[in-house]
């Protein structure tokens, strides 16, 4: 595995941690700091929600984001917008090329619908999100979970309106980096889904790097 950190000096690093597949992660990124997610093993969906660190009722909004840029895919220069239509972060580097924000997160309940009733027991992103909310006691609950970003995931939509989960277009070492426009609380589930190609049927770790340019 190659760590894509060549242009970051050790003195600039505020925080870094490898998050294994199936684990939740939560951390604050301050306004002006850069937040990088490195797809260490390739084709790993990183389900991500953002909240205004000072007011959790303001949070990432998929529809405000794609409406604002007139495009459903996220990449460099995409402004990630809140439900109040304020810029939360801007994607400033992207070696993958395309990220999804309409595919949502997997859950035990959607597993029963999408695959079969007996897939309910399998680990899912929503269970990770809920574990994070209860473990880190941010005062939030299920109703605070809205539609997320899936970094490194590929969900193409056709002009005829067909939508599907396709094989990923990411690869080991590819990364996406964003600059925070406000203090944001980041909530991540490193996706454990085994029933579709979003993780290449092999969920792998990702690295989180927060740094000050």
């Amino acid at each position: 595995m190659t760590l894509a950190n060549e242009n970051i000096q050790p003195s600039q690093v505020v925080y870094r941690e490898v998050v294994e597949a199936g684990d939740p992660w939560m951390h604050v990124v301050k306004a002006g700091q850069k937040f990088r997610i490195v797809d260490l093993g390739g084709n790993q969906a990183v389900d991500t929600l953002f909240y205004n660190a000072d007011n959790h009722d303001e949070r990432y909004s998929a529809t405000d984001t794609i409406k604002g840029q007139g495009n459903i895919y996220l990449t460099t220069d995409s402004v990630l917008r809140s439900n109040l239509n304020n810029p939360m972060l801007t994607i400033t580097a992207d070696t993958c090329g395309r990220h999804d924000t309409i595919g949502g997160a997997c859950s035990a309940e959607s597993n029963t619908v999408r695959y079969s009733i007996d897939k309910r027991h399998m680990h899912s992103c929503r269970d990770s999100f809920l574990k994070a909310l209860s473990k880190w006691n941010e005062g939030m609950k299920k109703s605070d979970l809205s539609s997320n970003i899936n970094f490194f995931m590929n969900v193409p939509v056709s002009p005829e309106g067909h939508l599907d989960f396709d094989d990923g277009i990411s690869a080991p070492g590819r990364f996406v980096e964003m600059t925070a426009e406000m203090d944001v609380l980041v909530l991540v589930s490193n996706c454990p889904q085994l029933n579709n190609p979003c993780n290449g049927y092999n969920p792998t770790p990702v690295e989180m790097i927060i740094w000050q340019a």
Partner: protein
Amino acid sequence: MSKPSSIIWSEHLPGGAHWSGVMRRGTCLRITDLEGGANVPMLMSNLEVLSERYNMPDTLKAQKTAFLTVPNACFSDMGRVLCSVISDTCGWHDTIGGISNANSLAEKYGTLNYQKANNDYFKNAYDSLVNELEKWDMGAKDMVPNINWFSKIRVENDGAMTFVEGNSSAGSYVDLRFEMDTVVVLSTAQHPLDTNPEYAPKPIELTAWKAEPVQSDDACLRHRAENERAFYNTAIYYGEKPHDFS
């Protein structure tokens, strides 16, 4: 679907209005675009557990579609069906375009307040929907991606989104059969990507009636195996024997 015979209630909504109410399991709601070009942003929640909401991604993923028409179902985040689209003379309803807000409306159309215009004051979808959500003990945090009935957003292969003009003509309607007791919150605000430079939200009519029982060959139930399983989840939630499924 024939015209409903046993109408329970009917209500006219002018453009720019907002509305909420409960649709019971086993009732239908027809939304009629009276003049053509209407837009109806809608959110839904399970009346018993309000955090169980209409879920755009789960609805789209399960049915491999980016828009709604017959015989799609609207899925909740708990793997159940809130309502089924049993009839539709329009053909395409938007799921990804989102809503207007106070700033976007002011930028596009200027502002007009109640003092000046009385009930013709300019209304945006965000404030309208939050206003209705609050009546049910919900609020801004429940503003998840909505449906925009009667609007069409085309997505090109590069992801670019275009508002398609003329998607719905006068008299178009969509019929929803509710599979759960559902809080319905809606507005008749213009679509945020509407190309009309004028503030001109269109009126609709709402009509509710008693649904026929869901038959085992129902088109929405049998649309996909995913739909069958979501109907199974819904039936057992209500303590009812589910339809057989593969």
